[in-house]
């Protein structure tokens, strides 16, 4: 009996990691140069994007009247916490809106009452973030490829280009990630949450400059919004909405698997990379002794590798680590302790061979079709 095999974690492998300047700037390393995590390998002036504020809602006024409450003109510069808009209500109380960041007022939409605000460009240093050897410097694209030792975590799907940042845990593996979870302290960070993130929370994270989110699940409707309205999963994606997201389990509320949550927890506060479109998280080694292994390991030519472990299968046997992928017990992980010899008629009327799995907290029986072996 065979079941699908999914590689979720590849530990301490020699791989390549990509570093990119976030805007125009200068690369400060050359090919074959050895780098350490704290080395600055480039610097750039980047715009952190834009934010849309619904002033009509914030001030409780009709959209067409929003502009008259603005305290700055469209096109003007404004700094964080400066007064952006205010309105006195009929009791004489002030409703005020302050600027969430340094920026320029771009445009106000009289039909929706939304204000678009571009953040001001800022200088950003790009650290190597890893021990390694520079293999490629592409001045034109502002990109550096470093050979390094890292653990790779493979999510199920995601969205967004490759981004770097410090990993911060913001919740337990089964928490929902609400809009209120994000604040400016997480600007530039890659956040690890729990079982589900909503669209509003993603928008807030973008506004606060969060670079990436790793989460168990996302609602399909919200994912479609990030993926151009599609629910298909081609081998190569090119989506980006200003943040990179990796979902480790599937659609809906599914607690992040213990295997991934534990390895990510060990990287809390450390510099990592996340590629949403490939659904890969790069966790570099921070041990200087990894340099000798990096030097002594040669990698094949650089290609646009497509990661595809999904069609692999393995023989079912007792002791294998498995993960539930069906609608019941979704995302639970455990070890196979028994395999039924005959098929059982399930409440759905279908026949299936039941597998007994011992999870951390209980024993469950699941048909073999609803399992995949995890590595």
């Amino acid at each position, binding site marked *: 009996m065979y079941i*699908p095999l999914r590689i979720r974690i590849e530990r301490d492998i020699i791989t390549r990691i990509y570093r990119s300047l976030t805007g125009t700037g200068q690369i400060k390393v050359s090919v074959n140069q050895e780098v350490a995590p704290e080395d600055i390998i480039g610097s750039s002036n980047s715009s952190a994007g834009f934010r849309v504020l619904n002033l009509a809602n914030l001030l409780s006024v009709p959209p067409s009247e929003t502009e008259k409450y603005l305290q700055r003109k469209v096109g003007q510069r404004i700094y964080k916490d400066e007064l952006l808009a205010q309105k006195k209500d009929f009791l004489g109380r002030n409703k005020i809106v302050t600027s969430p960041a340094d920026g320029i007022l771009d445009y106000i939409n009289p039909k929706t009452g939304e204000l678009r605000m571009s953040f001001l460009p800022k200088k950003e240093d790009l650290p190597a973030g890893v021990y390694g050897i520079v293999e490629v410097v592409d001045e034109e694209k502002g990109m550096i490829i470093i050979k390094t030792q890292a653990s790779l975590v493979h999510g*199920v*799907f995601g969205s967004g280009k490759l981004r770097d940042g410090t990993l911060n845990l913001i919740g337990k593996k089964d928490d929902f990630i609400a809009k209120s979870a994000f604040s400016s302290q997480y600007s530039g960070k890659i956040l690890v949450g729990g079982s589900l993130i909503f669209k509003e929370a993603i928008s807030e994270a973008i506004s606060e400059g969060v670079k990436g989110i790793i989460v168990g*699940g996302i*609602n*399909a*409707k919200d*994912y479609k919004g990030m993926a151009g309205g*599609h*629910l*298909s*999963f081609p081998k190569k994606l090119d989506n980006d909405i200003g943040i990179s997201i990796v979902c480790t389990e*599937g*659609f*809906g509320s599914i607690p992040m698997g213990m295997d991934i949550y534990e390895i990510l927890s060990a990287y809390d506060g450390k510099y990592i990379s996340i590629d949403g479109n490939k659904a890969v998280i790069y966790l570099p080694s921070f041990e200087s002794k990894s340099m000798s292994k990096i030097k002594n390991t040669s990698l094949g030519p650089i290609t646009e590798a497509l990661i595809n472990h*999904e*069609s692999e299968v393995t023989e079912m046997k007792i002791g294998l680590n498995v993960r539930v*992928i*069906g*609608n*019941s017990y*979704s995302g639970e992980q455990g070890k196979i302790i028994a395999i039924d010899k005959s098929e059982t008629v*399930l*409440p*759905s*009327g*279908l*026949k*299936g061979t039941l597998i007994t799995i011992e999870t951390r907290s209980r024993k469950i029986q699941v*048909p073999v*079709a*609803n399992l995949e072996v995890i590595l």
Partner: protein
Amino acid sequence: MSSLPGLFDSFDNLDQIDVGSLIPWIKNPPNPIQLENYLANRILYPQTMPLNEADIKIDLAILREVLRLNGPKKNQNGEMLGENPFLNITLRKIIIPDKFLQYVPNLTELTWAFVDGLLLSRAKEDFFGDLWTVIVSDHVDEIVGSILLPQFGSSSDVMDLNILGKGYKIKAGSLTLIPCPKDRCELSYKFSNGKFLGKEENAIEISGGKLGIMIDGRLS
């Protein structure tokens, strides 16, 4: 995506299904967000098996919609054109792959899903599509029964049907399954205000089998 076997591995456009179109097919539907997540996980993990009755009902709703999406398209006159792996319009056959029974073991429910997906929106303007033979297809095709789509004249219309000497009253708007395990089943019918195969009254012989005779009396 992987090509692991499952009920929907014959279809590559599950993501085009409008979740709202699934809801009418489910008796106690989950909320649309949960339903869309279920569909998305079906795309992600096509090999999974529904554990309970509620999930198999959702699978059948998805099957209806994906069959409709992939069904033959109508021309300007409302006639169905083209061939389809599940529908032979020329020979008036509904072809159900045998492997589908691994995922929906109830042949009656599976056949209704095919009727809903492929024939529900047909134009009842002539009698060409009033009678369909149902085939379960594997290495060898097996005829399992027939589908009758009578053209009722009004919602109060009744079809008096006699199959193998037993009488039935088929009301407009009803769905009926009559067992007829023989290879050939003789039937006669008479309408008060409708037609079947262009006639108000007639006697014919149709295919039977383990499914039997299904009569879809729904009004278009």
